[in-house]
């Protein structure tokens, strides 16, 4: 009986440690963490080893976020200054998601490459 209890506690401790380790090495963005998403929710059919997971690409992102046009629509107010990053005057709603957005590391803002001064007036930090 004591052995069973100790075994259970050990398993729980290992599971907790593993979970914490993963969350440190592969942190989620706050809004995704809030949803308590697991690895497999995005990395579908990529096995069980996180270190071997590949980027999910546009298809993976849009399996939940629906479409680039819809994402652009949500920020349509920015079109009045042609500052909508999801519907830019240069590319329209065609950019790859990971040109700005990264899940497990800091996101960037491609607009900053040229519009260094304007971007901070147009929008906030890339989620």
């Amino acid at each position, binding site marked *: 009986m004591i052995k069973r209890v100790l075994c259970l506690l050990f398993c729980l401790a290992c599971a907790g440690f593993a979970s914490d380790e993963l969350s440190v090495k592969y942190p989620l963005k706050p809004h995704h963490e809030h949803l308590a*998403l697991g690895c497999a*929710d995005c990395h579908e059919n990529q096995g069980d080893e996180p270190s071997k997971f590949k980027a999910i690409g546009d298809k993976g992102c849009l399996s939940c976020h629906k479409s680039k046009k819809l994402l652009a629509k949500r920020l349509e107010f920015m079109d009045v200054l042609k500052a909508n990053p999801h519907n830019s005057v240069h590319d329209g709603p065609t950019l790859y998601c990971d040109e700005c957005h990264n899940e497990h590391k800091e996101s960037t803002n491609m607009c900053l490459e040229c519009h260094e001064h304007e971007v901070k007036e147009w929008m906030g930090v890339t989620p």
Partner: protein
Amino acid sequence: MKKLALIILVAGFCGFLLVLPTHYALEKTSDDKFCAVCHEMAAMSASYAKDTHSGANKSGVSAKCVDCHLPHTSLARYVLQKAKNGIVEGYIHFFGDPDSIDWVKNLKNREHYVFDSGCLSCHTKVLENELLPTKAKQMHAHYKELLGTQKEIKCASCHVGVGHNFELRNELEYQKPTYKIYEKKMKELRGE
């Protein structure tokens, strides 16, 4: 015996007279036209009008403000929340400063003012609907798995733009831009 029957009859009739106007009042105070009298919600109404939930669909089916923004777990909770909202919003409307409210920031609190019981009262079998896309079914299973836990999520956690055609932020920004650089252009569009 006759006296008892008479008492029951009169009591029933009085009860009916009490319930009828209450029901009527609840019914008449549940749409966006009434809500807009005190609630500061021009942007909400504008975006809702474009959404399928307002009846902008082939079937003509529509939802009212209260269908999503009040709890439907019990009549008591519904009435209490409705009264609370009315008092708070009414006070702000008449005595507060509604222009100071940051509605865009408040969008993040959607889990508090959109009730799952409202969604599920109409979408009764959505969590078991096999006709949905695979990802939707997976996420609904995830939602069910988290029910009752500390990490519980709500319908509105994922369905960000539902009920407002994904345009609520646009309407809010149109009326009160978060970034000053948009103000001039928005004023022009508002015809000011």
